[in-house]
C-alpha cells in the first residue's frame, strides 16, 4: 500500500515540546558552572577607543573578566569583517562592541558592563542617507550575486515616446528583523579534549562551525554547533553574528562555559537590518496598457565595514514583458551598522515600489489593476529570455480576485469618518537551491531515521522532511524520525532564501531512494545495525537550471482609513500563491500568513531611523519599533493553486517562507490610495503622514 504523506496536513513534529516549554533554545542551556557575558557597545558614532578602564567593573562581586580590544584573544581570519570583534581600537559605527564583561550571574555581568569606562577619540561621522549623496556609486553586484545594473534596448527613448507615463519615487525606511528570540549562544570549551561545543541561535550551524573554526584556529572536527530550536531569524541569523564569537572568546578566556544573550536594544546595531531604499520607478505604456518601458533605479546604504546592497531593482527583471528597461542599484557607504538579509531582501522593498507604480499606471490608464498586470504577462523571463519552469501569476490574480470579491469592491466607500478601499499587488520570489547531504537508516526494528543538518527556525523543517522521507521510502510517517540542527549530522545548507525544504528535501529524498534500492535487493531480516544510505546533491542541486524559476503570488487588501485619527487598519488580507507543490498545507499556511503579517508591519507600523547626531537607530527596541500585534492583524487568508513543475527538485516544491511578505505592503498602499484618492509613497503609512496627505 502506498502511504500518501507528502502534501497532507501534518502537525509539527516538535509541537508538544514547544507548547510545554520543553524545547531548548540556545540561551536555555545551563551547563554546570555556566558564566554570563554582557557586551559593551560603543557610544560614539565613529572613532577610536583610546582606553578601557575595567578596574571598577572587575572590583564588583562575581565578575570574572572584562575583555577589551587590548586584551581579547587574537582571532583568525573570517569572510565577514563584522565577526572581528575586539580586534582593534576602531569604532566604525555606534553600537559596535568595544568590551565584554563576564561574570557569575547575568545581574553581575550587566552591572560590570555598565561599570566599564571606555574613552574614545571621536571622529567625524556621516550617517545621512540620501539619493544624491556624493559618495553613491554603482557596485559590481547586489545581494544574491545579481548584477547591479541591467539594461535592455533604449528605455529613455521608449519612455519619451510612450503614450502614458508614470514617474514616481518611493521610500522604504530601515527595517529590523527582530525575531522574538534575541541572538544567544552558550559556549563550552573543553580544554583537556580541545573541543568546542556551542549552542547557537542560528539559521545554519554549519556556517557557524566553519567561521568559529577559522576564527579560533581549530580544525572543524573539534567544533560542534547545535541549533536545535531557533526562535525565528528572518535572515538576521543567516550567518554567524558577533554574539557567538564573543561567547566563545569568553569561554576560552575564563575556562568556564559562558552564555551570552544579546539585549534586545543591541540587535539593530550588530545583527544586520534591512537597509533603507529610495526608488525611482518610471513606466511607459501604450493606451491599451501594454508596457513599453520600465526603469527601476534604487539607491541604498551600506556600512563602511562590509558592502551589502539590497537588490531591490531585481524583481523588475522578472515581472513584466517590457522591451526597453533599466534596473540598477547605487549604494552609499556610511558610518552605519552593516545591513544584511531581512525576509525577502530585494523583493520586499522592490516589489513595494514596482507594484505601487503599476497601480499608478492603472490609475493613469483607467484600466483595472488586475487586468493591467494580466496584459503584461511575459512569455519568457524578460531579463534572460529563459523560459519559466512554471509561472502562474495570472491564475493567482484571477483566483484571488474571485475569492476576494474584487469586482464588487471597486467603488471606494465612506463609513462615517472612515474611508474604505481595496488594493492588489503581485508578488514574486526566486527558487533558490543549494547542495546538501543526508543519511537515511533503516533500523532493525522496522523504523527509519533520517539525518540532515537542516535548521528548523519555525518553518516546520523537521516535519516536512519526515514527510519527504516517508514518501520516498513508501512508509507511514510515524515510522520515520528526523534529526536536524547539529553539526554532527550530514552537512546541509542554511535556512535562508526560502531554499531549505528544496535543498534539504532533495538530499533526504535521494538518501531515502538509495536506501530503498539497497533494501529492495535484500531478502530476510536487516542486520542488527540496520542499513544506511547517504546522498550528496552537489552534482544535481548544484547545477544551473536552464529555466527561470520563481514563485508568484497575488495579494489583495481591504483597508480602513480613519480620517480623524489618521489610523490605517487592514480589514482583510488575502493572498494566492503559485509555489510549486505544497508539501504540508498546515505549516505552509502558517508561513504564508506569517509573512503577510510581517508585510502588514512593513506597510503600517515598522520603520527605523538613523539619528543624524548620535548615529544610531532611534527605534531600537520593541517599544519604539512597532512590529504588528494581535490587534493589528485581521483574519488573513492564504490560498495556493496546484502547480506541477518538473524542473525544481524531486518534490516539485518552491520556497514559501518569504513570498508572503512581498506583495503585502504594495497591496495595502494601493488600497489606501483607492480609499482616499491620495497616494503615500513612503512606508509605513503612519497617522502623521496620513493626516498630512489628507489635509
Amino acid at each position, binding site marked *: 500500500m502506498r502511504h500518501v504523506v507528502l502534501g497532507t496536513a501534518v*502537525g*509539527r513534529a*516538535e*509541537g*508538544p*515540546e*514547544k*507548547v*510545554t*516549554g*520543553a*524545547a531548548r*533554545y540556545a540561551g*536555555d542551556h*545551563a551547563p*554546570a*558552572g555556566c558564566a554570563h557575558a554582557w557586551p559593551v557597545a560603543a557610544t560614539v558614532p565613529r572613532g577610536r577607543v583610546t582606553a578601557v578602564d575595567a578596574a571598577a567593573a*572587575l*572590583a*564588583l*562581586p*562575581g*565578575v570574572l573578566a572584562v575583555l577589551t580590544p587590548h586584551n581579547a584573544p587574537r582571532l583568525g581570519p573570517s569572510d565577514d569583517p563584522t565577526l572581528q570583534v575586539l580586534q582593534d581600537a576602531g569604532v566604525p559605527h555606534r553600537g559596535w562592541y568595544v568590551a565584554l564583561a563576564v561574570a*557569575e*550571574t*547575568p*545581574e*553581575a555581568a550587566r*552591572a560590570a558592563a555598565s561599570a566599564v569606562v571606555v574613552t574614545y577619540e571621536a571622529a567625524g561621522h556621516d550617517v545621512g542617507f540620501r539619493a544624491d549623496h556624493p559618495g553613491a556609486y554603482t557596485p559590481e553586484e547586489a545581494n544574491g550575486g545579481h548584477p547591479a545594473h541591467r539594461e535592455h534596448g533604449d528605455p529613455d527613448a521608449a519612455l519619451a515616446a510612450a503614450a502614458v507615463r508614470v514617474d514616481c519615487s518611493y521610500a522604504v525606511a530601515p527595517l529590523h*528583523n527582530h*525575531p*522574538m*528570540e*534575541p541572538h544567544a549562544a552558550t559556549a563550552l570549551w573543553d580544554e583537556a579534549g580541545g573541543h568546542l561545543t556551542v549552542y547557537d541561535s542560528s539559521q545554519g550551524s554549519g556556517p557557524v562551525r566553519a567561521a568559529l573554526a577559522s576564527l579560533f584556529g581549530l580544525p572543524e572536527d573539534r567544533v560542534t554547533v547545535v541549533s536545535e530550536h*531557533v*526562535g*525565528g531569524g528572518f535572515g538576521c541569523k543567516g550567518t554567524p553574528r558577533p554574539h557567538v564569537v564573543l561567547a566563545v572568546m569568553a569561554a576560552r578566556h575564563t575556562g568556564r562555559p559562558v552564555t551570552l544573550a544579546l539585549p*534586545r536594544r543591541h540587535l539593530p546595531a550588530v545583527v544586520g537590518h534591512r537597509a533603507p531604499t529610495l526608488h525611482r520607478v518610471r513606466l511607459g505604456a501604450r493606451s491599451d496598457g501594454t508596457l513599453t518601458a520600465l526603469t527601476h533605479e534604487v539607491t541604498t546604504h551600506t556600512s563602511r565595514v562590509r558592502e551589502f546592497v539590497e537588490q531591490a531593482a531585481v524583481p523588475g527583471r522578472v515581472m513584466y514583458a517590457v522591451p526597453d528597461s533599466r534596473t540598477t542599484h547605487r549604494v552609499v557607504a556610511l558610518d552605519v551598522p552593516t545591513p544584511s538579509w531581512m525576509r525577502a531582501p530585494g523583493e520586499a522593498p522592490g516589489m513595494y515600489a514596482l507594484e505601487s507604480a503599476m497601480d499608478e499606471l492603472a490609475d493613469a490608464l483607467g484600466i483595472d489593476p488586475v487586468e493591467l498586470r494580466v496584459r503584461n504577462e511575459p512569455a519568457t523571463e524578460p531579463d534572460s529570455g529563459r523560459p519559466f519552469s512554471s509561472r502562474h501569476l495570472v491564475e493567482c490574480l484571477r483566483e484571488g480576485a474571485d475569492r476576494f470579491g474584487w469586482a464588487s469592491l471597486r467603488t471606494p466607500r465612506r463609513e462615517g469618518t472612515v474611508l474604505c478601499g481595496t488594493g492588489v499587488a503581485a508578488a514574486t520570489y526566486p527558487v533558490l537551491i543549494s547542495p546538501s547531504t543526508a543519511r537515511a537508516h533503516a533500523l532493525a526494528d522496522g523504523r527509519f531515521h533520517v539525518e540532515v543538518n537542516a535548521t528548523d*527556525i*519555525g*518553518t*516546520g523543517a523537521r516535519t516536512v522532511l519526515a514527510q519527504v522521507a516517508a514518501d520516498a521510502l513508501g512508509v507511514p510517517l510515524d515510522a520515520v524520525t528526523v534529526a536536524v540542527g547539529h553539526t554532527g549530522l550530514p552537512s546541509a545548507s542554511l535556512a535562508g532564501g526560502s531554499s531549505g525544504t528544496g535543498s534539504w528535501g532533495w538530499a533526504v529524498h535521494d538518501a531515502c531512494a538509495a536506501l530503498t534500492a539497497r533494501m529492495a535487493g535484500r531478502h530476510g531480516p536487516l542486520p542488527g545495525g540496520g542499513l544506511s544510505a547517504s546522498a550528496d546533491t552537489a552534482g544535481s542541486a548544484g547545477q544551473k537550471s536552464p529555466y527561470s524559476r520563481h514563485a508568484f503570488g497575488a495579494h489583495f487588501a481591504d483597508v480602513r482609513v480613519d480620517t480623524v485619527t489618521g489610523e490605517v487598519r487592514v480589514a482583510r488580507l488575502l493572498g494566492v500563491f503559485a509555489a510549486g507543490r505544497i508539501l504540508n498545507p*498546515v505549516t505552509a499556511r*502558517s*508561513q504564508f*500568513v*506569517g509573512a*503577510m503579517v510581517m508585510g502588514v508591519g512593513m506597510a503600517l507600523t515598522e520603520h527605523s531611523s538613523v539619528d543624524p547626531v548620535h548615529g544610531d537607530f532611534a527605534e531600537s*527596541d*520593541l*517599544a519604539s519599533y512597532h*512590529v*504588528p*500585534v*494581535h*490587534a493589528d*492583524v*485581521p*483574519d*488573513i487568508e492564504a490560498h495556493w493553486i496546484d502547480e506541477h513543475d518538473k524542473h525544481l527538485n524531486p518534490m516539485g516544491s518552491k520556497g514559501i517562507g518569504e513570498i508572503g511578505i512581498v506583495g503585502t505592503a504594495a497591496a495595502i498602499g494601493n488600497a489606501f490610495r483607492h480609499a482616499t484618492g491620495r497616494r503615500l509613497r513612503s512606508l509605513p503609512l503612519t497617522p502623521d503622514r496620513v493626516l498630512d496627505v489628507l489635509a
Partner: protein
Amino acid sequence: MADGSDPRPDPGAGAVPPGPGGAAAPPASRVTLKVNGTEHDLRLDHRVTLLDALRGHLLLTGAKKGCDHGQCGACTVLADGRRVNSCLLLAVTQDGADITTVEGLGSTAGDLHPLQRAFLERDAFQCGFCTPGQLCSAVGAIAEAAAGHPSHATGADALTDPGPVTLTAEEVRERMSGNLCRCGAYPRIVDAVRDVTA
C-alpha cells in the same frame, strides 16, 4: 532547588560571592516561591527578576526573555492567577507568591492544558519562542474575561454588566496584544483561544 538539588556548583544558589577586591556581595534575601505547585526556598540577589529566578535558578526555561523590558510578553507567567511580565518583577517582591509557568499548565502529552492542545491543533506557532508567553497570557485573559473585566474592545453596554465578557475575536486580539509573535501566528492563536472558550 536551594535545598541542594541545583545541579550547578554553588555560587550560593544565585547569590554572588564577594569580589576579588573584597567588594561586598550584593544584597540578597531568602525568598519562597511556590512554582507549579512546588515550594522553593531561594536566596536571591535583589537584582534577580522573577524571570531569571525561574530560568536561571529553578531551570524552568519555558518562560522566555524576548526583551527584558516588558515590551514583548514572551516572559508571561501567572502570579497568584494573574498574568504578569516576569521580566518586570523583582523576584524578592514575589515572596510567597503562587507562580504558574507554561511547564505547570501541562508538561506531558497526556496532561496537556486544553489551550496547549488547541495551539497544537491550530498550528498556532512557528518558532515557538513566544508560545509559552502566549499560553500563559491566554489563560490569564480568559480568566479576566470570565471575571467580567472589560477591555478596550468591550462594547459600551457590556461595561455596565458585571457578568462575564464574551471573548469575540476582537476581544481576544485586544487582550492578547501584549504578546508579540514575530512569526505572525496571530490568526491561529486567536482561533485556538476561541476554541477553548466557545
